[in-house]
């Protein structure tokens, strides 16, 4: 390999066919004169524009179509000529300077074209060495070397897992959840497609020997009594999920407090109180309509025995476990109600230090997350200890501000230009790297950007899971 050109922080390298270099690989340009090396990442591999190669290929094409024949090359010069046709131009982005065994960011210099030696650099060694306390194998680089991350890299962070359908997003999310649980972290998952419900089981059917996994199914084992649900979560649910007007909300608060005062707070008494409350007819209608929705949702009960103690539930997974909120087969409205209620309950527990922190995995969050929550999640809720991982195949449903503030982004394949444009706005990396690499990622390969990989973008083949995945796309034709 030889350095050909440097423009800004892009270096072009000539590489011969016997040098197997792929997109995402790291190279070290060692300059013996200055005793340091330029660390670059290959973001695109092109054919080198060798003079005369057009004529050569044209000649090959003509002969391939028209003639059959034989070459007699006594000196075996042709092999060298063939090599030229396949000579590659590696477009590389400078990632840092290696000096005295340490990588320095933001430094740049012009390496010697003639004296520099270019060698593949195993960036995984650098990342792995920093992941010693709570290591887990996220996958393999080039399908060979293990890439070890530390679950701490997800702690207190905002993560995004995105890619088109069938590329392995949920697979990675499950891997992250299981490793968080393994190291004693509590997780909660908003499971839109019911694909996390078997997370606690191996493919053989055996249960996992670590962590606690609880599936919550609305109307079945996810029901609250009103005193357990409490006013603020229920009120927010009424306002944000059921669009309760503010005048009606004020009346609702009065009714709730009155029932509390009388120690008569129940679903039945709430309905009766709304009907007989002294207020404008339109307010009563508005409140009663929402009340009916609450009843129909099946989320509430007056039977204390079938009620869910959310605090107890979350404490039971606080030493390592996952609560899977199954949103499958729920109407959009009920989904929004469940999420609103759950997030409010979580905020309440975290504010009162009844829960230290929680890792929230939100699949296709745009289906149930209200507008105002996006900013809330990256600011207020993050400080309270809700560390969110968004998982989506529609990157434009996540706001640009979220991308900019994301600490880790796991990007799977996108071929759509619009989607690429959206994800390229991630602040931690140049847009060209994303566009060039992500477009050609095979299934189960992802580009990891951010703190988890010490800010060295890495292409990794995600580790297979020994657990029931359930997230694979269902097909009609078997073969």
């Amino acid at each position: 390999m030889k350095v050909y050109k440097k423009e800004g922080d892009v270096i072009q390298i000539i590489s011969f066919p016997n040098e197997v270099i792929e997109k995402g690989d790291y190279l070290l340009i060692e300059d013996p004169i200055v005793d340091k090396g330029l660390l670059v990442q290959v973001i695109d591999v092109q054919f080198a524009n060798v003079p005369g190669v057009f004529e050569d290929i044209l000649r090959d094409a003509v002969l391939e179509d028209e003639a059959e024949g034989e070459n007699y090359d006594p000196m075996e010069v042709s092999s060298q000529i063939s090599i030229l046709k396949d000579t590659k131009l590696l477009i590389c982005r400078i990632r840092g300077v290696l000096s005295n065994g340490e990588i320095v960011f933001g430094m740049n210099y012009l390496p010697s074209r003639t004296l520099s030696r270019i060698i593949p650099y195993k960036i995984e060694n650098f990342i792995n060495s920093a992941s010693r306390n709570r290591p887990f194998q996220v996958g393999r680089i080039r399908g060979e070397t293990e890439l070890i991350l530390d679950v701490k890299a997800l702690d207190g962070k905002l993560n995004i897992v995105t890619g088109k359908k069938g590329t392995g997003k949920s697979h990675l999310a499950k891997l992250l959840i299981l490793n968080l649980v393994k190291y004693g972290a509590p997780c909660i998952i908003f499971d839109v497609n019911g694909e996390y419900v078997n997370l606690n089981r191996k493919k053989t059917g055996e249960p996992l020997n670590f962590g606690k996994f609880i599936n919550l199914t609305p109307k079945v084992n996810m029901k609250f009594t009103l005193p357990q649900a409490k006013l603020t979560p229920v009120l927010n649910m009424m306002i944000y999920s059921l669009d309760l007007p503010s005048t009606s909300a004020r009346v609702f608060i009065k009714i709730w407090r009155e029932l509390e005062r009388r120690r008569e707070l129940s679903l039945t008494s709430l309905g009766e109180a709304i009907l007989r409350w002294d207020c404008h007819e339109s307010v009563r209608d508005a409140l009663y309509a929402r009340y009916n929705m609450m009843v129909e949702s099946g989320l509430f009960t007056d039977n204390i025995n079938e009620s869910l103690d959310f605090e107890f539930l979350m404490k039971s997974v606080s030493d390592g476990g996952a609560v899977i909120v199954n949103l499958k087969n729920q109407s959009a409205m009920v989904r929004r109600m469940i999420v609103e209620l759950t997030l409010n309950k979580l905020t309440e527990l975290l504010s009162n230090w009844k829960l230290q922190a929680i890792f929230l995995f939100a699949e296709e969050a745009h289906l149930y997350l209200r507008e105002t929550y996006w900013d809330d999640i990256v600011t207020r809720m993050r400080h309270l200890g809700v560390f969110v991982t968004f998982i989506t195949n529609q990157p434009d449903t996540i706001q640009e501000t979220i991308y900019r503030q994301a600490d880790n982004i796991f990007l799977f394949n996108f071929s759509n230009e619009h989607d690429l444009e959206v994800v390229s706005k991630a602040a931690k990396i140049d847009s060209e790297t994303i566009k060039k690499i992500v477009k050609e990622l095979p299934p189960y390969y992802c580009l990891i950007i951010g703190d988890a990989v010490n800010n060295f973008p890495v292409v990794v083949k995600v580790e297979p899971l020994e657990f029931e995945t359930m997230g694979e796309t269902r097909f009609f034709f078997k073969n």
Partner: protein
Amino acid sequence: MFKNSLMSNLFSSEKAQLLKEELIPNFLLKLSDFSMKTIKDSGSNFIQASPELEFEEDPQLCLNIKEINNPIPIHPIYKDSTIVAIDVSSIKIGETNNGVICAIRGAVVWRSENEINFFRCGPLLFHITDFIIEHLYNNGGFKETLLEFPIGVVSRLRSLLERFIQGSVCNYFKDSIILFDGSLTAGTPDNPVNNLNQILSKARENRNIVLAISKTTKIGLSGVKLSELLKSFKGPCLLDIDENIRTFFPNHPVQLLGKVYAVKLAIKGLSFRLDVDEKINFKRTVESLGKLIVNDVIDQGYPDTLRLAHILSSFTASDIIGMQRFLSKKFKLQIVPKINLRRILFGPFGKPMEVS
């Protein structure tokens, strides 16, 4: 179609060895090998890369023909015939301390019953030094040592390979139309009359007809180029210009061993100089051309088989870089840019376009 099994067995397992012996003269292989070894002896550790265009040495004739005969139409003759074409190219790759490195490559293409086959040999590399010239004089059959260096030597080597391949082809093919690139002019040091006479004689023995088509000859009729000469004639045609040309060639040393025509092979094609073995009568010449236009594809008036032979043998820029890489790997030579004296002396004012 083939006289013996060589060509019919072209793709058999033993072909390489047979072809090596029959299409590349052994002495040329040895000479190449021998000459390349002299790189190490010469103490050179670098090559000044100065790739030049392939050497084109067709004779340049500028005649002013005042009176010409009427062109004879060529009528298609629908009889199967094998068309064989031969071309050889040479190129300079770079300069060492005491010589020049050049390469030659030859190609044979044959079209039979709409199937095209080819055989390409080379590139053969030569390190041309005084020592090699001396060696050539002893073993290569050259009669003169005064050669224009290095073009004369390269031309000789190319001519050697070309005539050898032409001879082999004329020997092995039967009842075929054999196309040479260039003319049937001989008598120069690198192109002896005897060699060509033997080739033509062998061709006649095997009932082949040799048609030499030249691309670059400039013959003018009151200022009209040969390529435009037959433009006004509607169909394929042949014009005898032998007498007009022959007056410009004394019998010694350069001789015309063929009868010279201007030929147009396609309705809207260009016309070219055509040399046909002088011992072939006019009737057979016209018949052969009639078969040629039926059995070959004629694009812009030029036979496709000959075009393919040229494409196969010619060198591209990447061929040159590949050969330089080969030299650097095998002989540990460093490739450096050629020193440009004008550039050194005059800097940006030393432009090659200036005459003096």
